[in-house]
């Protein structure tokens, strides 16, 4: 095995933070591909430019995604990375593993690939970094036979992902892990066989802390919330008061100013609370949501290209999420149908909603307009009215004439 001189990236082995270069070297010790990846990277560092080519279409039989094709422009110089495809393995919900399962994953990967991984990729997959085309089918056979499947890529449903939720967190409002598993299983076909206009991501967080960053990077962002009062344990409030300035740290930071604390009792004017979670996270022993649990469905977030980055918009202010999640599954199918009918190629759903208007979208999926969906109403009076709209306004007016009472 060729020994590369890597003075530049060697500098990245110094310092307290764990070094990816050290990792690459570890793998390189007995893996030709990893070894060439090291030399290849040093070359990038010395010339300040990358050498990977656009990915070609590679994959496994019957699937349209799950593998990112990658070739080097300088494959003759670094034959171990001439092909260097990544395989996306669909992670278990919440990234929970047993050592046994993980070791199995490693063993297979060492056998066929570079021994390099990303645990995990930004979407959530367990990413196996770098293998050759001919290894793809064997890899798939090995993993799938052991109960592991590929994740998403291309114009398909992407691997859903979620926060740890009920696995460990006191704040979750629904079973993020269970829902993610259920949806992934339900939509296997959409995940493996790209038929969408572009990618579609689903991420689920159990509360407004949004520990899986759903609101910023999922076409469908599912954010847990509740309908009910925050219950207060005044004894625990007293305990917190010993170590924290409750007025400065909690009451004055409440965005709706619905809290008060007189040094003795903490009060919350619950109808005014917008459930932002600040107070609860800072006084977790004292405060607890009560009442109905569920989630807010938001839609459309994505990275900047083409129309600028988007955060997800509230579509369904509240939905209960309980197995078998029929309502949500049906809704997702309706969403995809509308998207499919209206999108140009490479248009994410947020872009299409922006193009066609929220009304067209909401009507198609059967959701009523609600002020919870908006931050503020429209400003410019450039409104569309259907004939039916105007008729219904006129009908209302006719009724008002009869009753003598206006309904605005």
């Amino acid at each position, binding site marked *: 095995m060729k020994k590369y001189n890597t003075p530049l990236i060697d500098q990245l082995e110094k310092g307290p933070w764990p070094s990816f270069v050290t990792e690459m070297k570890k793998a390189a010790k007995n893996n030709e591909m990893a070894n060439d990846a090291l030399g290849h990277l040093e070359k990038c560092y010395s010339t300040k430019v990358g050498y990977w080519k656009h990915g070609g279409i590679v994959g496994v039989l019957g699937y349209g995604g799950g593998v990112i094709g990658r070739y080097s422009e300088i494959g003759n110089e670094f034959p171990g990375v001439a092909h*260097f495809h990544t395989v996306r393995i669909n992670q278990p919900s919440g*990234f929970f593993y047993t050592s046994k399962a993980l070791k199995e994953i490693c063993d297979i990967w060492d056998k066929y690939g570079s021994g390099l991984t*990303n645990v*995990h990729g930004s979407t959530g997959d367990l990413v196996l970094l770098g293998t050759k085309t001919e290894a793809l089918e064997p890899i798939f056979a090995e993993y799938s036979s052991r109960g592991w499947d590929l994740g998403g890529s291309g114009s398909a449903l992407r691997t859903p992902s979620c926060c740890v939720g009920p696995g460990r967190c006191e704040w979750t409002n629904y079973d993020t892990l269970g829902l993610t598993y259920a949806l992934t299983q339900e939509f*296997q076909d959409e995940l493996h066989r790209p038929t969408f206009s572009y990618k579609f991501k689903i991420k689920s967080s159990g509360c407004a802390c*949004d520990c899986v960053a759903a609101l*910023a990077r999922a076409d469908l962002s599912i954010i847990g919330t509740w309908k009910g009062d925050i219950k207060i344990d005044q004894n625990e409030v007293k305990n917190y008061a010993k170590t924290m300035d409750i007025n400065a740290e909690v009451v004055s930071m409440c965005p709706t100013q619905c809290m008060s604390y007189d040094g003795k009792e903490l009060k919350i004017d619950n109808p005014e609370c917008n459930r932002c979670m*600040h107070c609860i996270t800072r006084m977790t022993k004292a405060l607890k949501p009560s009442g109905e649990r569920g989630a807010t469905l938001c839609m459309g977030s994505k990275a900047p*290209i083409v129309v600028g*980055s988007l955060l997800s918009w509230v579509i369904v202010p509240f939905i209960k999420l309980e197995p078998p999640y029929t309502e949500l599954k049906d809704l997702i199918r309706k969403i995809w149908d509308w998207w499919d009918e209206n999108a140009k190629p490479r248009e994410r759903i947020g872009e299409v909603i922006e193009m066609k208007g929220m009304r067209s979208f909401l009507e198609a999926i059967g959701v009523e307009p609600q002020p919870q969906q908006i931050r503020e109403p429209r400003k410019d009076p450039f409104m569309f009215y259907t004939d039916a709209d105007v008729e219904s306004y006129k009908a209302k007016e006719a009724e008002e004439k009869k009753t003598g009472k206006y309904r605005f």
Partner: protein
Amino acid sequence: MALPQRKTDVGPPNFEQFLPPVIKKNYGKWKYHEVITPGSMVHVAESGDKLWTVRVASPRLLATDTIREHCDIAEKYCDGHLRYTTRNNVEFLVSDEKKLEPLKKELKDRGFKMGGIGAGITNVVHTQGWVHCHGACTDASGLVKAMMDELFEYFESKRLPNKVRLAVACCVNMCGAVHCSDIAVVAVHTKVPTVKHEDFKNMCELPTVIGSCPTRAISPDPANKSVKINAEKCMYCGNCFTVCPPISIKDPERDGVAIVVGGKINSLRSNPKFSKLVIPYISNEPPRWPKAVAAIKHIVEVYALHARKHERIGEWIERIGWEKFFKLTNIDFTFQCIDDFTFMRDTMRTASTFKW
């Protein structure tokens, strides 16, 4: 050896089989948690059961041997149970309090770094960079390593007013969560791409290429059976290059990185926010990007000095005003900071109420 029989559409394994017994028992019935150190916390269930978590830094790019090392440790202290976080740290899940300190000791001895919990800096969400992506105009892993070496104390021990979420993206596709991070680096091109006309018609679809351009800079070039790019309109996003290989945009001397700040994802206190551009260009300086790293550290320090407890960077800036942020950080305000994309209007100030 014969390959086993492949299966399709099995989906991921059911996570339940990977949960430690204490989680299975107390699933969805947690009562509260306490942060013990920046690297460890305990969750207490309504039943009184406890689960200790020890969080360990990961470079995310892991050799299988390192994963095996994680496994070995998990076997020794956690009955084989571990998880990774949404920001790519490793978490050892301890059900037996007696094993907590020994675990920490062994982690320390082996050189693993514990931290990332609470009001500090945790792992950096990032992308492939030169390690694997064709589009990269910088290396993500290298930048992360250089940043975190410099900011390491905020991971391991030193606290900040609130969490500071960092990210790195190696091109404006932003596979990291750059667009809503407290501080992030995004790599940028600064030159108009060139088109290999002779390959265009075989390798690219005209409507896709034209539609790929956010600023409508691309128009057909019928003479060449290709496209032409209007240099006045192109802002080097590279999306045409993404959809069409004969278009090339990389330039070692001109590619660089920009720094954005003030983003946030959760809805605590204030709404989620996009990150905003503050430093438009720093030359690519592998292997350690000293200026980019210094800039980030500088911003963290100014924030630490001025923000109120629990304020995220974006919340702090919105309270004091962006003009004040530029003043306090002494960062040059450039034309690039002024939005000139479609939604510019909402970024301009429409009142004489600002600070001098």
